[in-house]
């Protein structure tokens, strides 16, 4: 009864529910990109589950024609962990926001990453609480005026990728909602293909409550100079003319931007990306325009055994050692006595 996989197309992943985001919201682009890449994975729709918390971004599952669970605020990683533990065969995705995933749900996200549960986690970072109409979030920037900070934010913001790396995540990547043609789909593919907890931060524009939050590196005139596309094994070159690079300051753990061609600097001097180097990923996650370009792509990828695999291996090993559980044996183990 399973589906004819090859015949699935984008449309098969579109549910019959009306999409209820504000016109112009970046969430549309993400939804379209996900629906576009899903057929490529050759996973039957019935084996795919989208799990979310609460927030605009968390409405995502309703729009995917797969199984879906719109849970409660912040708890999607925990629910998803249960889903995956109960049935490791399922392809489980988590859609969450900067509030849902990093504020109320920070702990669950951290532990799902640490345990390396095989979940594909999409964090829609719009640096605002959309659904509740515009309060600041843990990624909102200092000074940002929002409904709950009429005089400006005074909380130091957090970096989702630093957080994920600090939590021992084995796959950390980043993209932007506007990169619809290639980069976002590519990142979704990588996110899917990594076995274990995959963490993809997507900068997403909330055009109603935080419009233009990412303009400082997304606007046409600055994009090329402020976006660094990481590729494993490739030098970190960027710029409209691809004439800038990142270099490790000699003998130090600091990066600097170099101009190719100046003072004899060539591409060979530029640092080569290594997805498996954790401190490098951490360093790249710190880069912020205008001083540095924002690092996009796979910052870190270093697979390890997944949690649900280890759990079930243990279940199986125990069963092999002790035999399938037998209630009669269990009840009668230890001291018993007969009456009558």
């Amino acid at each position, binding site marked *: 009864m*399973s*589906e004819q996989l090859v015949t699935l197309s984008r449309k098969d992943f579109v*549910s019959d*529910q009306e999409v209820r985001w504000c016109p112009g919201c970046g969430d549309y682009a993400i939804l379209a990109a996900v629906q576009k890449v899903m057929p490529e994975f050759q996973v*039957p*729709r*019935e084996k*795919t*589950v*989208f*799990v979310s918390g609460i927030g605009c971004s968390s409405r995502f*599952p*309703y729009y*995917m*024609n*797969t*199984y*879906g*669970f*719109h*849970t*409660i605020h912040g*708890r999607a990683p*925990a*629910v*998803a*962990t*249960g*889903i*995956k*533990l*109960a*049935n490791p*065969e*399922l392809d489980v995705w988590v859609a969450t926001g900067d509030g849902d995933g990093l504020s109320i749900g920070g*702990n*669950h996200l*951290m*532990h799902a990453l640490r345990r390396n549960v095989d979940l594909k986690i999409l964090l829609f970072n719009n640096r605002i609480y959309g659904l509740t109409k515009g309060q600041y979030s843990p990624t909102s920037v200092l000074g940002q005026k929002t409904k709950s900070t009429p005089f400006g934010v005074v909380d130091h913001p957090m970096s989702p990728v630093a957080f994920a790396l600090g939590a021992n995540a084995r796959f950390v990547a980043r993209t932007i909602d506007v990169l619809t043609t290639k980069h976002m789909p590519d990142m979704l593919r990588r996110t899917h293909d990594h076995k274990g907890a995959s963490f993809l931060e997507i900068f997403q524009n909330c055009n109603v409550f935080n419009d233009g939050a990412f303009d400082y590196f997304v606007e046409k005139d600055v994009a090329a100079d402020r976006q660094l596309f990481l590729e494993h094994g490739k030098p970190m070159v960027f710029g409209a003319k691809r004439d800038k690079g990142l270099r490790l300051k000699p003998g130090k753990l600091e990066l600097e931007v170099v101009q190719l061609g100046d003072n004899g600097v060539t591409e060979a001097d530029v640092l080569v990306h290594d997805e498996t180097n954790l401190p490098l990923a951490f360093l790249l996650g710190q880069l912020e325009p205008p001083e540095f370009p924002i690092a996009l792509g796979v910052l870190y990828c270093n697979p390890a055994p997944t949690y649900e695999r280890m*759990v*079930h291996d243990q*279940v199986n090993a*125990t*069963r092999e050692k002790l*035999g*399938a*559980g*037998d*209630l*009669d044996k*269990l*009840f*009668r183990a*230890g*001291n*018993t*006595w*007969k*009456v*009558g």
Partner: protein
Amino acid sequence: MDHVESTTSKVTGKLPTEEIDSVVIRFAGDSGDGMQLTGTQFTQATALQGNDLATFPDFPAEIRAPAGTTFGVSAFQIQFASFDVLTPGDAPDALVAMNPAALRVHLKDLPRGGLLIVNSGAFTPGNLKKAGYETNPIEDGSLDGYRLVSVDISKATLAATQPFGLSQKEALRCKNMWTLGLAFWLYDRDRQSTIDGLRKQFAKRPEIADANIAALNAGHAYGETIELPSGMSRLIVPKAKYEPGLYRNTTGNEATAWGLIAGCQSAGIPMMLGSYPITPASDILHYLSALKHFGVVTFQAEDEIAAICAAIGASFSGSLGVTTTSGPGMALKTEAMGLAVVTELPLVIVDIQRGGPSTGLPTKTEQSDLLQAVVGRNADTPLAVLAAATPGDCFTLAIEAVRIATKYMTPVILLTDGYLANGAEPWRIPEASALPKFPVHLRTEAAGFHPFLRDPDTLGRAWAVPGTPELLHRIGGLEKDYDSGNISYDAANHHKMTKTRAAKIAGIARDIPLQTVHEGEDSGDMLVVSWGSTYGAVLQGVRNARRRGLKVSHAHVRYMSPFPRNLGEVLSRFKKILVPEMNNGQLVKLLRAEYLAPAEGFNKISGQPFRVSEIESKIRETLEA
């Protein structure tokens, strides 16, 4: 001082034996003295001897409190008898006090004339001071009036274990076995099960096993030569009359773990336990973690919220999600319970109640989560609530919880408490094949499917799990349309869905046993209504009162939500209704609200179970009022 003293006149030579109906003995000592182990071993031997019994372990909140302090005292009480034992007994007939602190804490419960065994070797100046004694009670005459057996157990143990080359510290650890040996002799119990147990436990260190066994035998031998206080005999408690069958001891937590496993086998689905450690619930997690070969997945989550959420996720995936906790953890699960109610997923939530509010008295028992379980959530969020009466009943009701959860697609809360969780009773072992069977039918037919399609009888919704072709659907915490399962903000629909959720739970009443009157006439002057672990004390109290000619009956409620459908009618047949609870009045509120029954509460909120005598005198008082 390793001789026998007595403040009353002494009898020498071999003691006569005497038959007696029941005995209550309490072992008390330092946390490090191994009193819980002593108690468990005594229980084991007593059960094998064919007595009925009930136990009450009572240990401190501290892991290992500093030696000799009163707050570090750990105790274990057991009542065993030739009749149906309902409680661990009000007051001990015999008290074993391994040090001054234990004496200080527990002496007040020993009736005058009771047997008091003290380890005189621990009555050092330092220990006396820590326990707040200015003079040594063994010597200052303050124990006059008890039948005192003072023996230097420490010294006797060192002597007995000397051949095995243990360190002094290790050797002294055998004190409890010496004491157990003496108790075994006094009550004529067989040592074999303990000896077998020790051999097994210390298989890797046989010298320790040997030393313990030597201590046990020495204590026993000591009994043979003992000079007991006057009036004392070696006591023989004849076997109790049990229903025929194979028996074992079980604690409430063990029975709960087993019942959950059995329930899932009956339902034919795997179990996924999401839990976070908390006293006194942790043992269920421990037991189930060791039973992986039953296909149980146990997930120690980062907190109670994640634990229940993972369980909900597992239920969505077609396992039975289970979560186990106690008061503070229950509180944290409140929001997620609402999600399980609105998504109508099966889920079993086990709450081992303990003393509160807040962290409260973590190792003490209480029945104070009932209202929380029944109505303590935001919005109208009905679910089923069951409450176990005895350790063995935990098994039965755990299975019942699984049955109701899967049949009605609803969360079920199973309430037990610290007293049931750790207390033990003999349990007739069922044949696995004789357990109820209620296989779950997961939905697979696509025709006419939507996720909130209901069974017209149970109102349970269709359970279609990820992996099932053609039944792709989304559920969530927003209100659903009755007819499609899609999100709906429609006013009339919300009213209908709220009423339907309530009707579904109310309808379970048709599927559970009618309320019976357990003891006494079906109508009359007074009914005592109990629930949960007070079962034994209340039943015994009612029996005693009836024996004294009082007209009183007893009903015990195990289904707290919904109530049995005839409960109101049962209550209406009595003039007075007394509801004893280990809380400040919770069931009594529900009965009054539901049936306008003139129920009055009798409340004990001391972290300690009711005494039978308390119930009995309250009955008299109420009848006389």
